[in-house]
């Protein structure tokens, strides 16, 4: 099985219009069409190859012959035929591959003719099954639900294209061989599974939003794919509060993408040009989170994180930020998660409310848990500088530079250190 299928980019240049339409259909319809194909054929591999093939054919034909009356229907039928032909060939050769397992109560979706037939929730749950490695879950979900290309996924997760292709193939094979079933879990099980899906999408987002290594500070397009996936899930499960909170969180963070870097350098929140924040996304994010009441478990963690992002997003200027409120959210989050990354954020908030010494004291509790994380050293440097402890600041910048492997962040740290030394 190959994983060469990807973005449809083979249309001739001179016929821009159908190409653009096909791009749009690809973005809007890939996941829905694939989910229906998978549900109808119970073959992940063939469904994906067939749909890629159908888009390639559309690129060949539509510019010259004109668009079919129902483009999505045409794509589905073409892809479905591809799958059926291959199933027939397999049967003749006596080499039928196993089908996807399905839950007992599962009912295959109706014909495509039924308006809005959509099986993407099943596809997402299949990709995000906890029996798959988390990184495979993220990549597979982006691949199957959004049609993100193998190349882009490789760039997102910082592996070679060949490694990513192998990872996707292995994950699809495991789904079939281990009998991970198609069909929606019910009740409490669905809630737990949606928590897992949220974790998976959040991982994909942070991989694009805050890359830990490499030259790029931010791969906004790739982080954007995770936001789209969250939006799809929210459309499918509008009442799931953890999904609502996650979408709000991602929208609010993603809205700052254009302000986060300038000339390849990291721009800290306080120095960002707030006029370049995407206000429409902020509005949507604020509306979403305003409707979520207190939860428990992972849903509450997401809610608190979204509330923190909301405080930042709704402050007109950096000094207008309500740090006391943010500190309260962080304290609650810290008590719930015990996460060192949360503690780091809390230390920053505490420093803003009670002064840099209090922040430094809170950071000292992180030495044991996050000794090799450059952001701990970077925050310590900054707080020490503010507290007037210039030797500690100098040493901490040095340490952060040793630990940091992202080129854009390193440049930012070096600048701060140089400024400290010339002052």
């Amino acid at each position, binding site marked *: 099985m190959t994983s060469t299928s990807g973005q449809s980019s083979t249309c001739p240049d001179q016929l821009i219009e159908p190409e653009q339409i096909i791009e749009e259909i690809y973005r809007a319809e890939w996941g829905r069409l694939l989910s229906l194909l998978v549900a109808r054929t119970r073959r992940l591999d063939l469904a994906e190859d067939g749909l890629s093939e159908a888009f390639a054919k559309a690129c060949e034909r539509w510019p010259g012959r004109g668009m079919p009356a129902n483009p999505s229907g045409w794509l589905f039928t073409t892809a479905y035929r591809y799958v059926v032909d291959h199933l027939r060939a397999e049967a003749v050769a006596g080499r039928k591959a196993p089908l996807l*397992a*399905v*839950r*007992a109560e599962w009912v295959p979706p109706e014909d495509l003719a039924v308006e809005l037939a959509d099986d993407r929730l099943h596809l997402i749950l299949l990709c995000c*099954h906890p*029996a798959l490695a988390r990184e495979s879950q993220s990549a597979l979900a982006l691949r199957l639900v959004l049609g993100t290309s193998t190349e882009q996924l490789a760039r997102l997760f910082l592996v070679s294209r060949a490694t990513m292709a192998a990872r996707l193939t292995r994950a699809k094979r495991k789904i079939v*061989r*281990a*009998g*991970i*079933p198609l069909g929606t*879990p019910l009740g409490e*099980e669905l809630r737990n599974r949606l928590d897992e899906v949220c974790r998976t999408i959040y991982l994909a987002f942070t991989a694009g939003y805050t890359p830990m290594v490499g030259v790029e500070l931010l791969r906004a397009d790739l982080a954007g794919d995770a936001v789209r996936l969250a939006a799809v899930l929210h459309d499918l499960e509008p009442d799931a509060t953890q999904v609502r909170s996650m979408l709000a969180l991602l929208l609010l963070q993603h809205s700052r993408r254009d302000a986060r870097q300038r000339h390849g350098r990291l721009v800290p929140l306080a120095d960002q040009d707030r006029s370049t924040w995407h206000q429409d996304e902020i509005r949507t994010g604020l509306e979403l989170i305003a409707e979520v009441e207190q939860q428990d478990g992972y849903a509450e963690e997401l809610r608190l994180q979204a509330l923190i992002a909301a405080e930042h997003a709704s402050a007109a200027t950096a000094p207008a930020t309500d740090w006391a409120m943010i500190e309260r959210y962080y304290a609650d989050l810290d008590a719930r998660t015990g996460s060192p990354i949360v503690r780091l954020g809390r230390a920053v908030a505490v420093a803003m409310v009670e002064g840099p010494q209090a922040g430094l004291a809170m950071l000292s509790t992180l030495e044991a848990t996050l000794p090799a994380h450059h952001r701990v050293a970077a925050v310590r440097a900054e707080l020490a500088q503010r507290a007037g402890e210039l030797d500690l600041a100098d040493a901490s910048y040095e340490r952060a530079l040793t630990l940091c492997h992202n080129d854009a962040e390193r440049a930012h740290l070096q600048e701060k250190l140089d400024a400290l030394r010339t002052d």
Partner: protein
Amino acid sequence: MKYFVLLAGAGEMPPWEELTAAEQEAGMARHAAFDEACATRPGVELLSAEALGEGSDATTLRTRGGEMVITDGPFAEIAEQIGGFYVLDAPDLDTVIELCKVLPAYDIDIRPVLDMS
């Protein structure tokens, strides 16, 4: 599909022989509940169920350079803690996972059994 469910007395479930009589009795009750859950679940059939002797009673055979070497077992550390297994027919992985929630808190590996026919 056919599944092989391997039970290890690890994590929160100590090895069987370290349990008190009362704990063993409670454990047996959970195994009985598992049998019952399998029997009543549509599409599920329990094909085989065995408790194994202690890992320290295992004998390991390894062929190296064409020669079989016999040693004291078991062959891997976790194998020491394996206490038993089930083989069952079930429609999918999620069904097996759900059924396993009835069992004592073993560390459990679920493996699909290959269809060699």
